[in-house]
């Protein structure tokens, strides 16, 4: 449960940025392992890549794209906040970052299925 002093949009944006970063960090080793198999064990890599034809895997990939997009746009939001001389509209920028992430991952899923 989110504690009362954390129940506001900027803290939730921080949490989303942190969780998406950790999830991507956990995913990356498997991603690199699969890439390495393309060279070392191409038949195994092909077999694993065929899994991506399944709908559930495509949806999971959509989730990964969302994590990547929300982390990327969240990072841009933080850089803007810290390096541009503005102070207002923080919630609007945060909402825009999440909206862009949904747009990118939604577009990916619609193209994939």
């Amino acid at each position, binding site marked *: 449960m989110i*504690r*009362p*002093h*954390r129940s*506001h949009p*900027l*803290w939730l944006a*921080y949490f989303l940025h942190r969780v998406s970063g950790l999830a991507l960090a956990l995913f990356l080793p498997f991603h690199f392992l699969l890439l390495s198999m393309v060279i070392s064990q191409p038949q195994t890599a092909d077999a694993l890549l065929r899994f991506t034809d399944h709908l559930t895997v495509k949806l999971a990939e959509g989730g990964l794209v969302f994590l990547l997009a929300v982390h990327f746009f969240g990072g841009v939001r*933080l850089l803007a*906040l*810290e*390096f541009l*001389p503005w*102070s207002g509209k*923080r919630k609007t920028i945060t909402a825009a970052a999440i909206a862009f992430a949904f747009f990118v991952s939604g577009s990916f899923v619609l193209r994939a299925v």
Partner: protein
Amino acid sequence: MTEARANMMISVWRGMGSTGKFETFEVPAQDNQTVLDVVTWIQQAADPSLSYRYACRVGMCGSCAMMVNGQPRWTCRTHVKRVLRDNQIEIAPLRNLPVIKDLATDMDPFFDKWVKAGGVHRASRSRDMPIQEVKPDTAQRQAADNGIECINCAVCYAACDTVSSNRDYLGPAALQRAWTLFNDEKVVDKQAVLDAVSGSGGCHNCHTQGSCTKFCPNDLDPLGSIAGLKRETAKSFFRRGSKQC
């Protein structure tokens, strides 16, 4: 004629140091009543051993800040109607500060960090010199004015999760003070201000959670001040690097 109201159930943190528990008091509801009024009623009518701190009762001194339903607030400026949930309120001492007793916290760590961040004004002129003219409409002066109304109530300090997780972190109020000094044209050694806030526990520890700005009862923007310090320390870092090349 005032309608008779049900009593409110008020849970108050009781204890010394790191040990204690919530104790529930039944307090009569009034039409106009602040959370500080409630705490005062408990001390005067129910349990005179209850310890808490207040002074002005009108949002000037900043000494009555407490956690109300888990959020840091000035109790003197918080109407009961705004925080009453299911006829209950939970009142605890400020987070991130050692508890002396019950609702009274030890503010020393908060003010020590304020000093560590270079919060003390170092005059650049003696009293024999003419008073320095300060134009109020410059962008720099306005940036300084934005943070100058801080009364050190420690609400932002209690709201900050970075303070909770990093014992050395200077905290929003101290960093906002440093940003005010950085923008004050009477402060000559700007680099000393930046050096004080760019080391271990300094402004770069901030995770931009924004709770400081969200809960500041004076509507100040410590998050913006910390962002300003991050910007200026980064510029200072690259300026120094280019000089060394």
